């Protein structure tokens, strides 16, 4: 059964992975980090990513037509994808059976990264992290 570190190391094995972290989006706390971060400071990156994740989770505009009700107390959004000239960011919400506000953040190089694969794998990792 993987813990936080195993989960992050697995994320780093994805092609093009530059850095990964587990972040609490209410506080902006990085619960675990591995690899590099875009501004050389995992904690600052976590706080910034947390703000983005919170907006996406809380605004109804990004929820599905049915099921914006946070059934089980979990956000209706699955993931966020950001692309820029040289990299991708994938933020995947982690659904837990206790009250939490956690997401996985993967930073991928654009030239060697595979966004579709990363998105699928990150979803699987988010599930295994809390279900085992």
């Amino acid at each position, binding site marked *: 059964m993987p813990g*936080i570190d195993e*989960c992050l190391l697995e994320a780093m094995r994805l092609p093009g992975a530059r850095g990964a972290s587990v972040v609490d989006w*209410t506080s902006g706390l990085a*619960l675990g980090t591995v690899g590099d971060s875009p501004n050389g400071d995992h904690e600052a990156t976590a706080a910034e990513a947390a703000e983005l994740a919170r907006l996406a989770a809380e605004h109804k505009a990004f929820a599905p037509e049915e099921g914006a009700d946070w059934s089980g*107390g979990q956000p209706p959004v699955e993931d966020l994808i950001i692309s820029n000239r040289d990299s991708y960011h994938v933020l995947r919400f982690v659904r837990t059976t*206790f009250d*939490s*506000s956690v997401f996985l953040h993967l930073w991928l190089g654009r030239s060697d990264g595979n966004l579709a694969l990363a998105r699928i794998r990150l979803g699987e990792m988010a599930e295994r992290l809390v279900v*085992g």
Partner: protein
Amino acid sequence: MEAGPLPGLGRPDPDPSGRPDGADRQAGAPPVLSPMLSRLAEERATGVLTRDRGVLYLVEGQVVHAESPATPGLDVLLTSRGALGSDGWWEAVSQAGAERRVGRFLVDSGRLAAGALELCHLGALYDAAFFTLGASSGPARFRYGVAHWIGPVRPVTVDAVERETLRRRALLHRIWPDPDTDTAELVRTGRAVDAVLPPRQRTVLDQVDGERTVSDISRVLGRPGFHTLVDVRRLAAAGIVTTRARTVECRAPETVAPPVSPMSPVSTATARAAQAAQASADPDVALLRRLRDALEAL
């Protein structure tokens, strides 16, 4: 009960540890949260640090566990939403408590995924540490050799805990600078609630009944205390929630005989402002009052 300078803007100093204990307190730099804790980290101490708002357990100078009455413990967090049955929790405590490896037991026996335990425990640790290292904390004492029965889960450095505590204070301050709602009984202001209030805030608001405090609400919801603190500061910033004391203070001029002497200039001013607010049906007055409160709290 605000104490110590808050870094109002920007990030706190990323590394407050390189400073001699207790120095720079006047200089506007973030204070060393606990000189004793820094010393214990340096000497790689094992034991429990007790302050008036909570406890921190150390193993070889690293923080392995923290508890505070202000935030629900791991048992409440794990059982209140069904991640773990309360039977499962107590069985783990009775089976593995004596050996001080309850966390390990929960994972090894298949009751909880390792990641779930780490996420929940780590969140609870930073949360309890935030309250334990609160600015109003009094003297601390340390008992060497004491270990917690949860056992090792995911130790973090004292530096990381102190840095995060300072960052959280700054975060709260940025949302709404008045700390009164952190500890007082909360009431709704009667202000119309925005239909698109975020669900986590709405859940908190539903628990505001004039009696409960942030820590009461956290326990009812099985939610980390700091999360509730953040949502309540947002609700306060939106003018939806305030402290019970403040509404009583504002209503006082209507029900009590005109104040003669014992009132301080500040509360007289508040009373006058409250009278002005009640005299006018203009909703802008309420806004101005909140603005004034915020400015006073800066």
